[in-house]
């Protein structure tokens, strides 16, 4: 009798938990569903569904017209290409270059190291956005405006990621390094052949974070690009949504298309990313 009671109580508790879980999940995912569903509706359908639950359901006249329009008339592919080129230059460089300095600061012993560490820690709390206008002045002097190089290179060295790598490498076992030295490995070789392969989770974190950052950055591309030629996706979406005539379906289609690559990158590196993210608060 008593066990039956507690069993029922437990089942009730479980059900309650799942209701809470699913309600919260809905809050997080509803705007994304709204975006994807609306990208397949006509503007009239979006407006008429706006005030009901139908906004979240793929009902009524569905069409792929918005996507076709976005690709043919809004030239999505041109902006997409720009964003991809910038990411392909930026993300691998960010991942490797900051890992290299993180390794040097965390594992090697050399003159000036402590000064560099203090500098990096100090820099990692400055929001670099504060110096963005004068960064623009530097880029202008170097004739980097309106180019892929100007979009991708200035954000290459990133103090926060250096700090992340530094903490990671500082925690690596020193014995590993000593053993490699005995085996005749150079300090550079230790990084490329031993330490980097052991650092996959942290690299995955930096890849995802820097990709999300580059893909979504709005401020720097606003300053660097002069015309449509080098315009990236966020800039193009902003232009589309502040146009005189607003086509809602097209905006949602554009937004959906531009979210897909981040989704793919996230799926690829998800496991290692979440693993090292859950560690960052304790270590950071």
């Amino acid at each position, binding site marked *: 009798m008593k066990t039956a009671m507690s069993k029922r109580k437990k089942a009730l508790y479980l059900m309650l938990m799942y209701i809470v879980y699913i309600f919260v999940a809905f809050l*997080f995912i509803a705007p994304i569903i709204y975006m994807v569903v609306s990208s397949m509706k006509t503007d009239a359908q979006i407006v008429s569904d706006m005030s009901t639950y139908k906004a979240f359901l793929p009902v009524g006249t569905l069409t792929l017209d918005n996507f076709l329009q976005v690709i043919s008339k809004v030239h999505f592919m041109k902006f997409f290409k720009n964003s991809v080129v910038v990411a392909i230059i930026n993300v691998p460089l960010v991942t490797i270059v900051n890992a290299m*300095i993180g390794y040097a600061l965390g594992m090697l012993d050399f003159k000036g190291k402590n000064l560099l560490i203090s500098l990096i820690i100090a820099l990692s709390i400055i929001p670099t956005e504060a110096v963005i206008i004068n960064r623009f002045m530097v880029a202008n002097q170097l004739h980097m405006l309106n180019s892929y190089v100007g979009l991708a290179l200035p954000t290459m060295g990133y103090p926060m990621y250096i700090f992340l790598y530094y903490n990671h490498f500082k925690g690596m076992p020193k014995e590993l390094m000593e053993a490699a030295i005995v085996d005749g490995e150079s300090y550079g070789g230790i990084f490329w052949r031993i330490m980097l392969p052991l650092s996959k989770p942290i690299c995955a974190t930096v890849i995802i974070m820097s990709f999300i950052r580059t893909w979504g950055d709005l401020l720097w591309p606003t300053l660097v690009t002069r015309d449509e030629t080098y315009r990236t996706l966020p800039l193009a979406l902003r232009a589309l949504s502040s146009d005189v005539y607003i086509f809602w379906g097209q905006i949602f289609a554009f937004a959906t298309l531009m979210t897909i690559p981040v989704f793919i990158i996230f799926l690829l590196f998800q496991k290692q990313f979440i693993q090292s993210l859950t560690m960052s608060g304790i270590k950071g």
Partner: protein
Amino acid sequence: MKGKLKAGARFRFINAQTRTGWLFCAPALVPITMFIILPFCMSIVYSFTNKMLVQKAGKVVEFVGLKNFIKLATSEIAQQAFLNTAIYALLVVPIIIILGTLLAVLVNNSMKGVKILRTIYFSPQIVTMTVVAVVWSFIFSPGPDGLMNSALKLFGLQPQGWLQDPKWAMFCIAIMYIWQSLGMQMLIILGGLQFISEDLYEAGRMDGCNAVQRFLYITVPMLKNTLVYVLISTTINTLKLFTQVYVLTNGGPKGATTSVIYLLYKSGFINNQLGYSSAIAVAFFLVVLMISLFQNKVLGRDNG
């Protein structure tokens, strides 16, 4: 003799490390020097001049003393920008910390499907802020048929102007950031939670603490380091508010959403006043520095 040899070997040893060390630092240090440190120094120097972004012909760059800073301190728009940014941070940071902790506690178990839920809670993070802003601006449509207004109507509340209403605009912008970032902060806090040993809770139960007491007296103190990390990183992130403002409101309505970075962008890039913009950058940097030092000092991270 032997000692000398050893010293020589040690010297070579250090030398190779020094060489590799600086060689490995260079690829990151060069862009950092050129695109962070140099602009930072330029900001300090230019903040005392009347330099323009594009110097007008015949106008020479002059030292103007504290003129830019006096203008900054007396300008109503600038005061509003700093105030708006502070309001935004004060809206976002406590909510992220409280809700993030609650959510992390909620998903810190091994129930079926809980891993999928964590991923779902995290998913807004992969939506770029420009997209977030555009999608939420539709949700906050000001008309009586807007999604949020329709939801209000269900509860018998009056429709609001949201982004067009100075009272609500910053609130809407804050909601967007909270929605996007909460899942990520939840994961970080979850990492901290998983480090707390189950024994502590067992001991708490033995001493007759209820769930709320266990949360307040075991979970929260044990989470201190993680929460301070979330606090500092979220604060810095909120202070650089720009994207939502630039995409949705351009600082309006009536300057209610003008943030510091937006003002800095507008005065430097649009209004051509590089000196003034640099002064805003310097003031902003000092404020951020003070907040970081304060948070670090008062909350003090135990280095474990």
